[in-house]
């Protein structure tokens, strides 16, 4: 560009014509600034990764990781966990019949009882989970199939849910509340736990159903339309999800703080699991006194109101009782991993020490590169 080249020259102050116009003393030298930055001479730390320099790092990693790993492993081992499969896929299973004769629309409820024995007492608070296997709650279209605005109590979204909810958006001309496939497939088995005394009587163990969802979910993300009073009115003009037996405002009629969208079972379900085998918190068994264990060892019976079909996709249903620690549920993996990695690092450190003696000394003293 001629234009720009005029320009450039004028800026440079080297343009003969411009120089004459400009007169005296305005020539700006083009000499680059002699600064450390522009001359690429900024002080720099130049680590060279050689056996000698990184040796300590490996040993330090080893020394830190191994104790952590041991700690984690021990903690994980101290966690007590009991798991029982009640799918009923197997003919010996008490729930076989319920599983067999299942249909979403059946009006009669099928109940089955699974007896089990706890070998060890569960000392602290016990968390009761239900577990599903092979249930792809993380399927892309399933995950999307919800309307967060609706769940957040937005009235317009209540009346016209997001298109993402299709085909569970409307039913019989009315918008579904809560819409979408996730809500539609809400886990609806009811589990009850009985302790069998030594004398054979069944004592129902009190299960706390509040406090199982994230606090933020319960109080921020999920809201009933128009507050918690009179949900029947609030949800007027909406339809229940097709698979549900009762409308959303009947999820927990006794407790208005646990009803409608803020029903905690519902909220827990709506937090879609990351992996196809997952567990979800169902109830909490609180420790009553410091002297007696929460769940003493002995015989128990799990009463299941069997509503939820899983055999159609080769799924499994489990009930899990678990105590938890600061690191969550039982998982020996992390501890083992830490121990392994720590050991490997330690081993590598030794190898490097040998290498360092063999090579680095040579390099540092009589280094003639070849």
């Amino acid at each position, binding site marked *: 560009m001629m234009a*720009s080249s005029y320009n450039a020259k004028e800026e440079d102050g*080297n343009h003969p014509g411009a120089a004459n116009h400009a007169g005296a003393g305005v020539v700006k030298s083009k000499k680059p600034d002699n600064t450390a930055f522009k001359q690429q001479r900024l002080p720099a730390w130049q680590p060279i990764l*050689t056996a000698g320099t990184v040796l300590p790092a490996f040993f330090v990693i080893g020394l830190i990781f191994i104790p952590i790993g041991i700690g984690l492993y021990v903690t994980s081992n101290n966690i007590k966990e009991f798991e029982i499969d009640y799918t009923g896929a197997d003919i010996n299973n008490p729930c076989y019949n319920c599983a067999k004769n299942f249909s979403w629309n059946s009006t009669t409820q099928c109940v089955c009882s699974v007896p089990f024995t706890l070998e060890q007492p569960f000392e602290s608070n016990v968390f009761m989970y239900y577990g599903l296997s092979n249930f792809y709650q993380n399927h892309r279209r399933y995950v999307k199939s919800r309307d967060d605005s609706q769940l957040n109590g937005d009235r317009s979204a209540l009346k016209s849910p997001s298109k993402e909810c299709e085909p569970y958006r409307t039913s019989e001309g009315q918008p579904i509340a809560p819409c979408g496939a996730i809500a539609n497939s809400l886990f609806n088995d009811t589990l009850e736990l009985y302790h069998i005394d030594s004398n054979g009587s069944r004592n129902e163990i009190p299960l706390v159903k509040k406090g199982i969802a994230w606090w933020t979910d319960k109080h921020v*993300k999920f809201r009933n339309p128009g507050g918690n009073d009179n949900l029947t009115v609030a949800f007027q003009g909406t339809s229940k999800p097709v698979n549900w037996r009762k409308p959303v405002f009947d999820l927990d009629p006794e407790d208005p703080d646990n009803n409608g969208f803020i029903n905690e079972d519902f909220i827990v379900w709506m937090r879609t699991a990351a992996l196809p085998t997952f*567990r979800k918190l169902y109830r909490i068994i609180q420790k009553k006194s410091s002297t007696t264990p929460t769940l003493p060892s002995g015989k128990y019976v799990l009463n299941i109101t069997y509503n939820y*079909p899983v055999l159609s996709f080769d799924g499994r249903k489990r009930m899990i009782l678990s105590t938890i620690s600061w690191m969550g549920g039982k998982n020996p993996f992390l501890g083992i991993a830490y121990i392994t990695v720590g050991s490997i690092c330690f081993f590598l450190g030794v190898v490097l020490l040998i290498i360092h003696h063999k090579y680095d000394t040579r390099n540092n003293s009589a280094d003639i590169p070849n």
Partner: protein
Amino acid sequence: MTWRSPLALVRDALRGQRAREKDLRNLASNLPYEGLDKAKQPNRYFLGNGIKTTKYTLLLFIPMNLFEQFHRLANIYFVGLAILNFVPVVNAFQPEVALIPICVIMCLAALKDGWEDFRRYQSDNKINNTLCFIYSRKEKQFMERRWKDVRVGDFVKVVYNEIVPADLLLLHTSDPNGVCHIDTSNLDGETNLKQRRAMSGLCVSDPEFEPESFNSVVVCEKPNNNLNHFKCYVEKPDKEKVGAGIQSLLLRGCTVKNTDHAVGFVVYAGHETKSMLNNNGPRYKRSKLERKLNINVIFCVILLLTMCLVGSVGHFLWLQKLPSVPPYLVPNSNGHLDSPSLSGFYMFFTMIILLQILIPISLYVSIELVKIGQIFFITNDIDLYNEETDSRVQCKTLNITEDLGQIEYIFSDKTGTLTENKMVFRRCSIMGTEYPHKENAIRLAVLEPESGEEVIFNQRPRPPHTGWSLHAEDTNSEDTGYDHDNQRKSKVTGNAQSNVAFSSPLETEVIPDRKLLQQISRPDRSDSGSRKTDPYLDFFLGLAICNTVVVSTATAQRQRESVFSSSGQTNNPLDSLSNLVKKSASTRHIFTSWKYKPKRSRTVSEDSVVEEDHFNTPVKIEGSGVTDGLQTCSLQASSQCDDPAATSDNLSYEAESPDEAALVYAAKAYGFILLARTPDSVTVRLPSGEDLVFEVLDTLTFDFNRKRMSILVRHPITKECVLYTKGADYAIMELLSTPYAEHLSGKQKNIAADTQHHLDCYAKEGLRTLCFTKKIVTDKVYESWTVNRQRALAAMDNREELVMDTAVQLETDLSLLGATGIEDRLQESVPETVVALREAGIQVWVLTGDKPETAVNIGYACRLLEEEDLVINMSCKNKLACTSILDCTLEEVRRYSEDPRNVDTRQDIALVIDGHTLTMALSSDLQDRFVDLAKRCRTVLCCRVTPLQKSRVVKVVREKLKVMTLAVGDGANDVNMIQAADIGIGISGQEGMQAVMASDFAISRFKHLKKLLLVHGHWCYTRLANMIIYFFYKNVAYVNLLFWYQFFCGFSANTMIDYWLMIFFNLFFTSVPPIMFGIMDKDVSAEMLLGVPELYRTGQGAGEYTFFTFWVSILDAFYQSLVCFFIPYLVYQDSDIDVFTFGTPLNTISLFTILLHLSIEIKAWTVVHWVVMLASVALYFIVTLAYSAMCVTCNPPSNPYWILQSQMADPMFYLLCTITTVVALLPRYTFHVLRNSIAPSPLVQARRLDRLDVSTRDEWMKEWRSFRGIGQVKRSRLSNPPSPTLGTPADIHPQSPTASDIMGDDLTLNVISENFQRPVHK
């Protein structure tokens, strides 16, 4: 404007189209039509002078810019994917969100384009609205108008120091001789003034030029971009045709100098002007790295398709396996599910969208940014700055910086590239007698160490030189003392401009040879009778007048550098006054006529100056008050000293080529002073003090084919037509007739042979040789020749050939006068640079137009050739001979290199080949053999090559050997070569800017090449290569996380990371560190790279960026992504973790892994590195935390609300992040450690040395180099290269090709060497 029918408009437009396309254009004056509407204007079809260089208009910016951007394949790809996302069955993300990255990137690009275009618009506006003078018939005078109002056919007046607004056919100037000087530095960078002549016979009423009386038609050719060529003729009303060429054309963009005003007829305006046609914008070259990169991008595409196929098939199988419809399978809106195969098919596209960033979207943008940064650092390198010319290195092509690090072959010009191109007269031979000029040689030897690179400005009043005295030694010492002083001053004044080239005392002063001086000052020679035929006189006349040197006085020179001088001497009141006057003069043109009086007197002749001398001093000071004190001072000096030579000290010569100036100065030293030159006459003062005015009949200018120039003058005394010719010896020798002055008895019969002998000696000494001849042309011959000449000049078609033919016709039967040897000194540090480049594994070839002897000598001087080298000299006359020579040389060389005793002596063979032989060797059937031979040679010198051959050599080597080539040159004859090479480097030297304009990088000294290649080249290459590899790694590692997740979500293309965070991850969190890495990382320090040039070899060939490194990093990426996915997976399996809570640690882990991976790769951590790295991590946490705190329902389905917060409250999160990062990076880290410990690369060793303190490091470096290159040590013990004197190394060529040519020998194969038994140094 009257209404016209559309039909007429269309017809008019078509006619205009035809008129513009026609080969010849008829242009008439606009004046008779002034005021009429547009349809009646005769020149309405031609473009106006307004220019528009903007690409876009305000309205069309968006569509046009989009169109531009979609030329990029990558952009189309990403937009295609974004559009694909809008198709409901395959979409993976919210379609609108998916558009964000591509939009951001395209917006950035558009902003950049828009801003650049706006700048262009502004500068266009500024230029279009510049004022100029156009003649108006109504006002009967020149009126001030804007540039954009200038139309073809207008008459434009340009005054002193103004820029010419359009291409003007010069009709009239203020100079009585019709001469106008222009400075074309805006166009081609040549700073010497050029003369342009007004067309004579058109201005009807002198001295007042009347544009209205112009009633001829100007017929000119179609516009073209050749700046040195123009054809046109003017047809007068009486049908007489007058031809005109480039010498009558003022080009747009030039500045009028030394001329009060000039009036021209606009022939081309606006975009049709030559300068605008020459503007092709910046060039785009694709670097080698980028070519490789594109291949790897294709690999990435294949990888992507494979992964998508896996996803698609996986989805199909997963669906197949389901026994019935599970509740989590969502049917589409009409309630039924697609068949597994159809879903699988759709899934393929969904997967492409999901995994799209496997093709790094930001890579191209990042590379551009990195290159801008690299160029910033290159141009800011203070070591590549030249104080003398105040110039930095310039990067003209912006995208091949990394190619600098991969050069394998350098092709260098000699003159001006290896040498200074500042010519110093050294010796001459007249009539077969040699005059060695020993005193001069001594003076140069004394000066040399000090004045190596300083240009001394001749503006100060020089102490009156006593011309030449016989006490040369005395003046000598005085002289050097003075020069030292002067140098110091010029250093103080600082930034010099090279404008006033060829004026250092080194070049301008020649101490005459005593013997020669006696010869010409012999009393019997001074009588006019013998003067006519005195060959000595003729020789010096030839020196003085056979050139195109423009004479300017110190005054004129001062004006050109007023800035410089005034900055140096602000304490001079007179000086500042003169500046003031100058300023006002140039802006308002009030004082112009007053001011230029002294200068005009200069152009007329010396007489006026002499006249002034007769005034007494005080009067004179007042009289010349406008001129500054210095001028006055010098006049005073001259008045004190009666020696006429003293006045001539004010003269300075501006020549197109430095040897011309050197010769004129040499003549001046002998008292033959060129006083003035006008197109029609040359004034020369003889030693006797009388001035001779030669009428110049014609000038046959220099061209590369003839290799000579001639000037035809009428001798003022004898009234004979004399033709003085000078040229290269081989171009002259064959044109000689009988020895000159036969009457001078038989003792000088053999002048030609003697001179040839001297020439050969000169050449061996490394001097540039020129022969001078004279020919007396009889009037009859002249007349008939003139007719031919005129015809040729007026011809429209192939005028050049015709003109050249006429020149050849006249240049026959020349009589030899003598020859000159001019030294062109090597630039400083050339040998060191050459040695370093060679150690760096670069082969250096020299392609020169000089004689083989000169080239070989320079080769030794700059250590291209070593004493013990085997030099193969190839020169043959026909192809048959050439073939056999090539064959047996090749055989010889092969045998030589296969000889077990010479295991690594391949390096020590040098090939010298001349242009003629080269032509044959490069013919298609011999090419391969030649290249094979050249490959085995350490050095190749090609002599007497034409510009075209230069480029051919480069092309052949580049294509046959598939190597990276670099061509470096300074002159117009190197342009072809510069353009043919992968990288062209122009040296901004004495020969104008053509080479620089054509080059990719422009430097000012050859030695800068060392740092440019060894340091910047290496850095740029390693930085960019590592950055690109890292970029691929980064994207693969990140995308694979998503891919592994597909195995756990039924291949449903679900993501566990919030899409916004994914976008941010690439756009913000991890984008700056690699860019900074690409700009600033420093694997080895500059000192180390310069100290151990061998480190450069790492970049040659494949370098760091190979298939191997690419795939290794891809595999590492796979490994790391596996670790980053599966460790969290194993930790969280069968827990109540939800999708996005699972994704958060994954995202965090990959951030740490990716950044720490970079940390392993970063070789030097500066403050910038720390800041950028820490800021990236901080940005990630701040943005993610803020996002998770605010987004309650904003981005379904991910709902990141409070996820990171809850994770960060969990100790597991930290434990998980730590171990995963460690496991992911452990292999790479260990690999680096092991490699660096067990088999460290030279680079690592260099880095280790870098950490030592300076003295130890130097010791190591020395040891290293000595270990590698034994030859160098041996050499370096010699303190300086063999001095190029007669009788030293060049003697190993007993048979010079020239000699053999003369003898008609058609086979010369000299495999000469004293050293098949080379010194044992193993």
